[in-house]
Structures are given as C-alpha cells and as structure tokens.
C-alpha cells in the first residue's frame, strides 16, 4: 500500500514562510498532478515528499507511516528529475542499475531488471552509451528506467518533460501515462503545463502561492473552477471575464454589464445588486443574430481548425472560438450568445464561485 498523505504541511526558509497547511491524500495507484505557476511551491512540496527538503510543519505519511525524518532511500519512492540528474560518468546500464548495485543485489538479478526496463523504454540498444551521447528524449527515458527498477510504491516526477520539444513532449506524455497504467505505482507529477495536467491526471491539485486552491478531477476543475484564479489558469485560450452586477427586476435574475445582459438560471444563488465577475470560456460563446453580448471584431487569429476572434465588448477584449467557416472581418459588429449553464459566476470581492 502506497498512499501519500499530507497533513498540515508547511515550509519556511528562515523567516520566510513559503507554504502552509497543505493537507490532502493521494490514494494508492492514483496519478496526481501538482499544477501551478512557477514559484507556487509545487516543486518544494515534491522535494519534501522525496526527502530532499526538510518539512517545517505538519506530517507526511507514505504508506500509512510518518516519514518526516526518514532518509530518502527509505521512503519507498523513486524520483525523475527535471534535468534528469543522470550520473554523467556511468553508462546507461549503470545509471539504471545504480540503485540495485549499491543495494548489493545479485548480478544476474540486476541484469534482468535493467533489461526489463530497457525493453519497455526502448533503450536496449543504448545500454553501453553514456548520457552525453544520448538525445533529450533518451535521457528522459533513462531517468525513468532508473526509477522503474527501484520497485517502489511511489513515483515522483519533477517537471520531467519541460526540457523536451513539443512533439516529443506529447509522445512522452502518453508513454508516462501508459507506464503508470502498467506499473500501477502511486504517482505525484509536478508540472506548470495545464495540458499535461489535464491529459494525464486522475486528480489535479492546483497550487498558488504555497497553498492549494482547488483539488479535483480534470473535468471538475475545468467545469466548476472554484475561484477566478482557477478559472483563469485552466483552459486555453483563457476564460473571458466580465465585471457586472446581478439584477433581479422582472423576477428572473440576470447579469448586467455595459453591452451585456445575460439571463441566469432561476436557481442561481446570486443576490440582487451583488457585484460579480462573470466568466465564460471562449468555446462556450457563439455568434448569433440576437445575442446578449454585443461588440466589434478587432482581430481574427486562425489556429488551424478554429478561429479565435478578439471582440471588443465595451472596451474589453473578449475571445471567441468559432469554426473556420465563421471567420469575421475586423470592424464588424457582432452579437454573441452563451448557454446559461456555461456561465461561471464569481463574487468580485472574495473571488469565489457563486454558481
């Protein structure tokens, strides 16, 4: 059993507190992605999990046991580093075999395990090479092989794909996820790339300024972001935000802002007169004859399949993703519509989700 549980974890460097009260649990076999912008503390949290960084407050449990002061080698973890951290003076074989060699395992067993990992990772032909003779993707795989042969319950990945080009990254993403499905190790994966998080994670833990802002499945986080921060962070192109107020005249509640008037679902909990921010994803907006949002096209960007229209709605740049056939010329007045259930409402003061 290799669950990982964080109980009120905090981290300070001297007098500077960079993280506090992190509490969540990763179940056995789960693939959890720690997501957040640089400096949010996700790598520090991972390094604390590995034992490379001391824990200033709280308890870290791995497999049900408190491991705060336990040496990294005794934590039942394997880690893949951002810069691979391969041993430069050792061959690929020795790099992968190192943990078994220092544990004084029998030679035959070491060979078998290394060959097993090399087979899975397509490294069989490269075992005699040295790290400097490998490409970025191959080095990445050696780093993974090194983690695989350790037979541990928990895999830690620290932005493992950030040094690869886009195509290779997409490929390795699939490989890592397949490897996880095959080995079934509990995985903690740190990234700042939301595509990686959305495609790979069972659960995403979104961090900001040393705290967790939302935790949930990729669908939950995408569909029901609990704050303006989460809503703006997840999704590309980013969600459009319009500041306005709630109006309840005529019975049904509606969102009102200059150039915008959107009817809200009847069960909305927003109070009349409350200052709110309305969020709507660029894909949820559509061009209509008579819509609640009016503006003028400023710019049209083709991304391939779709076109991103930048629409000026009362001075705000609002992005709409439409099929290529609906491309619009700049300067054209436009009317947009949105389905009531695709609208996200946030309190403007607390920035928390209302409905």
């Amino acid at each position, binding site marked *: 059993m290799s669950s990982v549980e964080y109980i009120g974890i905090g981290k300070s460097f001297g007098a500077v507190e960079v993280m506090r009260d992190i509490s969540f649990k990763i179940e056995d076999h789960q693939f959890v992605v720690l997501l957040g912008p640089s400096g949010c503390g996700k790598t520090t949290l991972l390094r604390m999990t590995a034992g490379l960084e001391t824990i200033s407050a709280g308890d870290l449990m791995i497999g049900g046991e408190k491991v705060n002061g336990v040496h990294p*080698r005794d934590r039942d973890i394997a*880690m893949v580093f951002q810069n*691979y951290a391969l041993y430069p*003076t*050792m061959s690929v074989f020795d790099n992968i075999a190192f943990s078994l060699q220092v544990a004084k395992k029998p030679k035959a067993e070491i060979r078998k395990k290394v060959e097993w990992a090399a087979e899975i990772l397509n490294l069989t032909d490269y075992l005699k090479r040295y790290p400097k003779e490998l490409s970025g993707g191959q080095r990445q795989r050696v780093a993974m092989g090194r983690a695989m042969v350790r037979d541990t319950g928990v895999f830690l990945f620290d932005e493992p794909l950030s040094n690869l080009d886009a195509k290779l990254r997409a490929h390795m993403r699939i490989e890592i996820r397949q490897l996880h499905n095959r080995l079934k190790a509990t995985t903690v994966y740190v990234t700042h790339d939301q595509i990686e998080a959305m495609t790979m994670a069972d659960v995403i833990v979104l961090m900001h300024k040393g705290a967790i802002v939302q935790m949930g499945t990729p669908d939950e986080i995408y569909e029901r972001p609990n704050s303006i921060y989460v809503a703006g962070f997840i999704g590309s192109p980013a969600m459009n935000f319009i500041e306005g107020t709630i109006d309840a005249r005529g019975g049904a509640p509606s969102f009102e802002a200059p150039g915008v008037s959107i009817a809200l679902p009847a069960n909305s909990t927003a109070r009349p007169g409350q200052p709110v921010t309305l969020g709507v994803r660029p894909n949820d907006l559509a061009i209509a004859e008579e819509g609640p949002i009016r503006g003028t096209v400023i710019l049209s960007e083709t991304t391939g399949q779709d076109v991103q229209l930048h629409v000026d709605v009362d001075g705000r740049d609002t992005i709409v993703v439409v099929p290529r056939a609906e491309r619009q010329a700049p300067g054209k007045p436009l009317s947009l519509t949105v389905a009531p259930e695709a609208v996200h409402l946030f309190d403007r003061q607390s920035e928390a989700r209302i409905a």
Partner: protein
Amino acid sequence: MTTSDLVRRRVVSDHPLPWLMPLIAILVVFTIFPLVYNIWLSFHEFVPRRRALEWVGGRNWAQLWADTRFWQSLTVTFIYFGIALAVELVLGMAIALLLDADEPGFGFLRGILTMTLVIPPAIAGMMYLLMEDPQFGVISYVLKAIGLLSPATPILATTQYALAGVLLAEIWQWTPFMVLILLAGLRALPSEPYEAAMIDGASPWQTFWRLTMPMMSKVIAIAVLIRGIDLFRVFDYVFVMTSGGPGTATYTLSLYAWQQTFSFVKWGYGATLSLVMLLIVLIIANVFIKVAKVRW
C-alpha cells in the same frame, strides 16, 4: 588622413609573423636558447686549468650509468616525489571535501587555507628547520612529549627521519595548493546527481567512490600533473634544511645537479643531470597524460 588612420595602418598586417615575434623572442631567449645551450654543454666539460670548455663527446652521458651518487639521488627524488604527491593528494582531497560547504564561515576558511602559498619555499624551509630543532623546536618538543621521538634525537640529522622532516615542510606548504584545485572542481560539480544518488540509496562512501571520484577524475589528473612536475625538481627545502644530508638521505637529483654545476664547476655534467631530469619529467608526464586521458 587622421591620426587614428595612421596608427591603424602601422599595426595592421595580414602576415602572422609580426604578431608572433614578441612571443617567439621570449621563447628563444628564455627557453629555446638555454635548452640548446644545455644540450651543447652536456657534450663538453669545463677544464679549470685551461679555463675553457672542452669537447668530451658522450662521456658525461656514459658516466651516468656508473655514478652511484646519481642513482642514489634519483631514488631519493622518486621517494620524495611519490610520498609527497600521495599525501598531498589524499590530504588535499579530504580537506577539500570538508571545506565544500555553503555554511557561513567556510569562505573565510577557504581563504586562510591558501596563506601558506604566499610564503617563499625557502622561508618555509627555514621555519621548519627551526621547528624541528632538537633543542627548542616545537615539533621536536611535541613528538617527544607524546613519545614518538626519543629525547635529543635531531630529526633532520638522523638518517631515518631526515626525509620525513623535509617532507613535513613540503606537505604543509603545498597541500593547500591541492585543496585549492580540488575544491574548485568540487564546487563546480552538479548537485542533481547527488540528490538522485540519495534517493537511489547510495551511502556517503558509495557516493564518493562512484560519483565524486569519477566526476573529479580530470581535475585530479591535472592537479597531480602540475604538482608532480613541480615536485620532481624539489630544491628549496632540501637545500635550506639538510643540504642533502645526513649522508645522502635527502640528496635529490636537483641538488646533485646544482652541486656539480656550481660547487664542483662541472658544468657539462651538471647540464647532463638537469637534462636527465627534464627527460624523466617529460616521459612520466606524457605517459600520465595518455593513461589518465587528460585533454587540454
């Protein structure tokens, strides 16, 4: 035409020779001429009664084989070279590992460690000559106090201890040099492999032998090379502390060459001995460069 144009025209040349001339001149005057003159000298000998150099053919070179003094001094040189290099390397590495830390105060420690290097070796030799004095030397006193040395034993005048006494000064002064080079290498090592090794479960001992030493091999090789070449021509300490004695216990090759040249006015034989030293250093250094795969 402005002044700068004039200046520019005077210093512009497409041919490399004018640019190389200063360096060539320095090389010729200070390296090539002395070397060629030394080789020429080794086939001559100074004859005092005629006050002139006379051609002697290969006699100086042939004389080497039968010269027991030469073989003795060569043996002493090799012992001195071997022990000093080994101790300085091991000790230097140990101290460098201890000083490789970022805690406050370590920068200061690294700084004061290099202070021995500002003392001229001859002065360091005189310091140790005094400290090893049987009457009032502090080292003699301590060694006697802890029972390692019987009272009234003059370290530098006792055949068994004299070389060790000289080596003490040598090692004290030059270990920091080793530390300096090795520390620079250690400070430049990447930290990630060490973190990976921690997770992989390597003990500090395993980490040192399987990570640090291989990653440091080039730096170690260069340190050994520089120090080794320097050690082979040891002169100052021996000259100041023992003048080669007692007997031939500390009589090194450089001292022998010096004595032949300047005390016995055997310029030809002195030149031959110094050329032998040069040849030995060249051969050892080149074999070492090949074996240790040091690339420049």
